[in-house]
């Protein structure tokens, strides 16, 4: 029977010390280096100017009023609604009242948007450079070696994954080539980074690339704040006020009797 036959390959033990361990150590170190370089390259979130904060929070206040109106009396609600609607009409909550009604600025000319893109580019470039260098280094020095044997059997489909760079058809799938070991460590070191660097590290480039799959989600088109205020004012206008304190005596007494 074929599978009872055990393939044996005599390996120089030096392969183990001079290929397997160096690749592993280098991969862990590059992960750590990548983490710290991304920390260094990270641009601080830019501080919002006062009028932008005001615009944003006044909008939230309007939304809060729409959600939590039940806690205040009808007269208080009417006063606040009137205040918000007038302000929305005059545009006095807007950060840039003079830009009202103009189309939103082009992404490419808006310095704030450019800064965000630059930040992403920086991360990407750092990633690519390190990846290319390591891959080139592994290929130049270590390609073509069979360095270890897995302690469990596998189906032949794994051959492409585990024996990259070794062109032998009949070799058992359990043998792992050096380039494949590189890929395995590339994908599989996340738990080790988590242990060394803590949960939210930036060591694993694969995880980063996953996150960058849809950049459109990160930089959605800037919404026109004026329109948002108008929409919020309209929401408040159609709201029918209900007062929580109306009939509370009966509610409490019913709860007390029960």
């Amino acid at each position, binding site marked *: 029977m074929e599978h009872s036959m055990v393939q044996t390959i005599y390996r120089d033990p030096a392969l183990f010390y001079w290929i397997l361990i160096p690749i592993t150590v280098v991969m862990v170190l590059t992960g*750590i280096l990548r983490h*710290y370089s991304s920390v260094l390259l990270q641009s601080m979130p830019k*501080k*919002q*100017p*006062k009028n932008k*904060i*005001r615009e944003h*929070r*006044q909008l*939230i*206040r309007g939304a*809060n*009023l729409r959600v*939590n*109106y*039940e*806690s*205040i*009396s*009808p*007269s*208080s609600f009417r006063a*606040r609604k009137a205040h918000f609607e007038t302000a929305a009409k005059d545009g006095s909550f807007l950060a840039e009242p003079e830009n009202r009604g103009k189309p939103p600025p082009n992404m490419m000319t808006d310095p704030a948007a450019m800064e965000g893109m630059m930040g992403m580019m920086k991360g990407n470039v750092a990633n690519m450079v390190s990846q290319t260098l390591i891959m080139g280094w592994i290929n130049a020095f270590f390609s073509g070696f069979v360095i270890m044997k897995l302690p469990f059997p596998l189906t032949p489909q794994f051959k492409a994954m585990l024996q990259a760079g070794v062109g032998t058809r009949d070799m058992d799938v359990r043998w792992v080539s050096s380039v494949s070991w590189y890929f395995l460590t590339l994908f599989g070191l996340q738990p080790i980074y988590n242990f*060394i*660097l*803590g949960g939210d590290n930036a060591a694993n480039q694969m995880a980063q690339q996953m996150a960058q799959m849809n950049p459109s989600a990160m930089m959605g088109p800037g919404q026109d704040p004026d329109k948002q205020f108008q929409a919020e004012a309209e929401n408040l206008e159609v709201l029918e006020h209900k*007062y*929580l*304190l*109306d009939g*509370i*005596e*009966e*509610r*409490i*007494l019913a*709860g*007390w009797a029960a």
Partner: protein
Amino acid sequence: MSVDLAHPPPNTTPETAVHISQLAPKYIKRATSSLPWPLSVFSRDDPPEVWAAYETLFLECLRTGDDRSARAILDRLLARFGDKNERVMGYQCMLEEALASNDKDLESVLKIANEILGSDEANVPVQKRRVAVLKSLNRIPEAIKRLTELLDMSPTDAESWAELSDLYLSQGMSDQAIFCLEELLIVQPNAWNMHAKIGEILYASVDSSTTNALELARIYSESMRRFLRSIELCENYLRGYYGLHLTAQKLVKLIPDASKASTKDDAYNDVALPTEGTVQALNEMAVDKLGEIVRKGSAKEQGWDGYDTAELQAARELLDQGTAKVDR
């Protein structure tokens, strides 16, 4: 007694504060031991919890007067976050305020805060410190002005609304104080203590100049409903039942007159007045419940031991007054 320093309980008692601040010297000493440079690359010693714990220790040290430990902790925060960090700037002002012994020192703190805000007017922690300094200098109108400026920029800040309400109340402007608390309820609709606070302000806003029975009944019933809401949100809330008892007692007397005087064109009547029977029943409930709270709270029964001793005492006295009246 163990306290989670990273997530401290709100409103710590003086005993807890002393306990926490006594941890500070030990904490400062322990945290300096870190790995030497090349090895420190492999360790993570910068989790947010550590810095949250430092903040807690800093505040409790200031509260208990341990200014030296507070200074040491602040130095640690400065070394980590730099002196351009808004929170750290706020803490720096806070420490200077704590060290100030007279009005002149406070004036100089105020000057520093004004300088910082001159170059960066969106710095919320320092803005709050400026209000606090003005308050300590007893320049309440200016404090109110500054706080309204802050709230115009950041109207979702519940803490500032509560502070502004207190400031207005200290000036006897209860309508404005209530407005602020209503704003607060829009941000935090389930803050039962704030519902009760509105009730308290309404109750206290009645003075001898208001004699119209209808007007009085309107204020008291509004106040009573606020207390009811606080009870609805937080069962066994002592202040809620206390207020309910007080307002219900007043209303029982007022409602017969008020319902006679009642007119239909009252635009300001948001909700109709309650009936006498309802108020009566609520009053009985409040007395019952207060009795239960006082009994179980004084005995420190399981699950009833969180009550303030002074509040329990006040509730007991209120109940004793009631029974004395009945005896007569």
